[in-house]
């Protein structure tokens, strides 16, 4: 009785998906106007975990903001570290030694694999399959152990410094990384056989949840969402940074634009990241990991600086405005999940609730990075 009473004359009702809901993976709230199980309108409501990271950046020195970057996207924290140090190094004209660049690439790509593994497990969990999550976490655990040995933390890393990295890697790290890649290579066919080819999974993802390239352009979606729409855009190739130009890797794209395409893009990216790590491990030069002339106190010249990196979820950009003092005048973060989420309202219109949640899972949202 009561639910019917809440329906208006158009026979729709409002469903609050979140801020606490198993499918939103955090404190995202989506206000859904439903017509039965069909979604008439979806409106993401943000701000439940807003921590004013950008404003905090204006109140602390350039170096003090470093740990904040690891707390934006807790699943691929190193990419966010990288984006920030890149922007500051550009503004202060700091040269990074080559060994440090290679270490950055290796650790960032390891972090990307671990992020994609979490997504893989959580996505299948959204679809009702419990088991893959535990297998994915099994693999991810090794990455966390490897990165912990280098960076000292397991999740919210703060490893990069302006002009290099905090400390050098041990030979054990390289052997461990290569052993891990060998292990994951052997396990990828298992994931594909048991999960990708599963008929229920294929039926739930194929030809459902279209996000065409035009919609990506409209909302500024990047990363696997854009590549799943067939556009081979990857910041590592489009605006090369670090030592990526010296490494050989492909940009996986799938032109279908459905949830399955985004799934396959991420699975292919795991393979590509493994290729990058292998090459970087063999090419790793000797030398210092910190620039000799890196100043202790950074005071970039007046100006406006921007740097972007390819994070696990898309293009992460940092725009810095410096007034020549030891704190940023303005620090603007461009986070990929924010743009990727904003297309959800349009893409989910007219979809059934379970399909829309599969679409949301395939966008791979990390809420603290949307709210910042």
């Amino acid at each position, binding site marked *: 009785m009561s639910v019917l009473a809440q329906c208006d004359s158009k026979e729709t009702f409002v469903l609050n998906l979140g801020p606490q*809901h198993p499918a939103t993976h955090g404190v995202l709230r989506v206000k859904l106007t439903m017509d039965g199980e069909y979604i008439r309108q979806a409106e993401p409501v943000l701000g439940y975990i807003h921590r004013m990271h950008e404003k905090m950046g204006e109140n602390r020195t350039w170096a003090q903001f470093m740990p904040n970057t690891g707390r934006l996207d807790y699943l691929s924290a190193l990419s966010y570290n990288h984006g920030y140090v890149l922007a500051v190094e550009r503004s202060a004209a700091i040269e990074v030694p080559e060994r440090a660049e290679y270490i950055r690439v290796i650790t960032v790509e390891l972090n990307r694999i671990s992020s994609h593994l979490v997504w893989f497990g959580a996505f299948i969990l959204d679809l009702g399959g419990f088991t893959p999550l535990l*297998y994915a976490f099994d693999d991810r655990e090794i990455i966390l152990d490897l990165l912990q040995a280098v960076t000292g933390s397991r999740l919210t890393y703060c490893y990069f410094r302006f002009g290099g990295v905090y400390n050098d890697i041990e030979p054990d790290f390289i052997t461990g990384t290569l052993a891990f890649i060998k292990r994951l290579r052997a396990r990828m066919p298992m994931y594909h056989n048991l999960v990708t080819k599963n008929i229920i999974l294929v039926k739930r993802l194929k030809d459902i949840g279209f996000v065409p390239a035009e919609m990506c352009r409209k909302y500024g979606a990047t990363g696997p969402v854009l590549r799943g729409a067939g556009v081979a855009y990857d910041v590592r190739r489009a605006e090369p940074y670090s030592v990526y130009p010296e490494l050989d890797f492909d940009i996986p794209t799938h032109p279908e634009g459905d949830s399955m395409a985004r799934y396959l893009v991420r699975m292919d990216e795991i393979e590509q990241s493994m290729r990058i790590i292998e090459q970087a491990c063999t090419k790793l030069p000797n030398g210092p990991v910190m620039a000799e002339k890196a100043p202790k106190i950074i005071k970039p010249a007046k100006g406006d600086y921007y740097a972007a990196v390819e994070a696990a979820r898309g293009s992460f950009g940092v725009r810095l405005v410096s007034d020549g003092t030891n704190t940023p005048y303005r620090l603007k973060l461009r986070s990929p999940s924010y743009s990727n989420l904003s297309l959800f309202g349009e893409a989910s219109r007219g979809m059934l609730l379970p399909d829309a949640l599969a679409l949301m899972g395939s966008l791979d949202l990390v809420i603290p990075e949307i709210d910042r």
Partner: protein
Amino acid sequence: MNPPSEPIRLLAFLIGLIIFAALNAAYLVWLERKVAGHVQRRIGPKEVGPFGLLQPLVDGIKLMTKQILVPDHIDPILFRIAPPLLLIPAVMSFVTIPFSETLVARDINLGLLMIFAFASINVLGILLGGWGSNNKYAVIAAARGVSQNVAYEIPMLITVITMVMITHTLNLNEIVRQQAGGIFNWYIFRWSANPLMLVSFLIFFTCSMAETNRAPFDLGEAESELVAGYHTEYSGMGFGLFFMGEYANIVIGCSLATLLFLGGWQCPFGLWPGVHWFLIKLYLLIFTVILIRWTFPRTTIYGLLNLSWKILIPFALFNLILTGAMLKIWPLIFP
């Protein structure tokens, strides 16, 4: 010694069946968690008692001592009546299940019909639970549950009609008796009655999984979409009863599959028939059901309905016609 008088015998059976249902509900949860653990490279419960065997007991105490939260603006009668409505029909169905030739509470001639009559009641539990709890997720789940149960009862009943045409009886004990004498007399392998017997079994098994809201058909409680489905607002033993009802329904579904197709208490090689064979087959089927849950992702509601209306029902109908034709034609060829 004379056999005990009828009232005493019935009382003993009723108590026994309730204990059987409760033990099954408790230890199937344990089995579920253990199997899930081993499927997922974990060990599952292990702290309470040897191999975690006392875990169900502790869980039961926890559920019973928890406060039963009753949300505002619910329908107080429907909200409270729903959990028993799901559990009681399931327990009642045990009355006609022949565990062995003699171990059956009520050997009535319409046993099969009675179980299906009770099985159609338990969908009311889902409907009223979802409807009464003033929660949009619960209402969506209730609507799903009803359409799912209606869709799957049809192919299931058509398959059962096929079986009744072959067996000429609704008495479960009689159906099992006809399957005496080894594995090839089981109805699942009775090619002479109907060459598609294996398909019948698969339809029946799929439908009984959908009827009991088990993954991959657990759309009524799809936790990643509908939080906890129709029992979102239930806590404590209200939730506990839903849970027990679900497991009792699994046992009933698998018992029926065992009785109709796998020879019930008959032995696969014709020796020592008895309750042990029934239980072995029953728990093998239940184990399969649990394994399926932890292997597959969930379907969607329209995928589920499509499967029923477009695949299972046509197949079941074809099966029915084929069986009728076989029954008439076979005696003509081999008089």
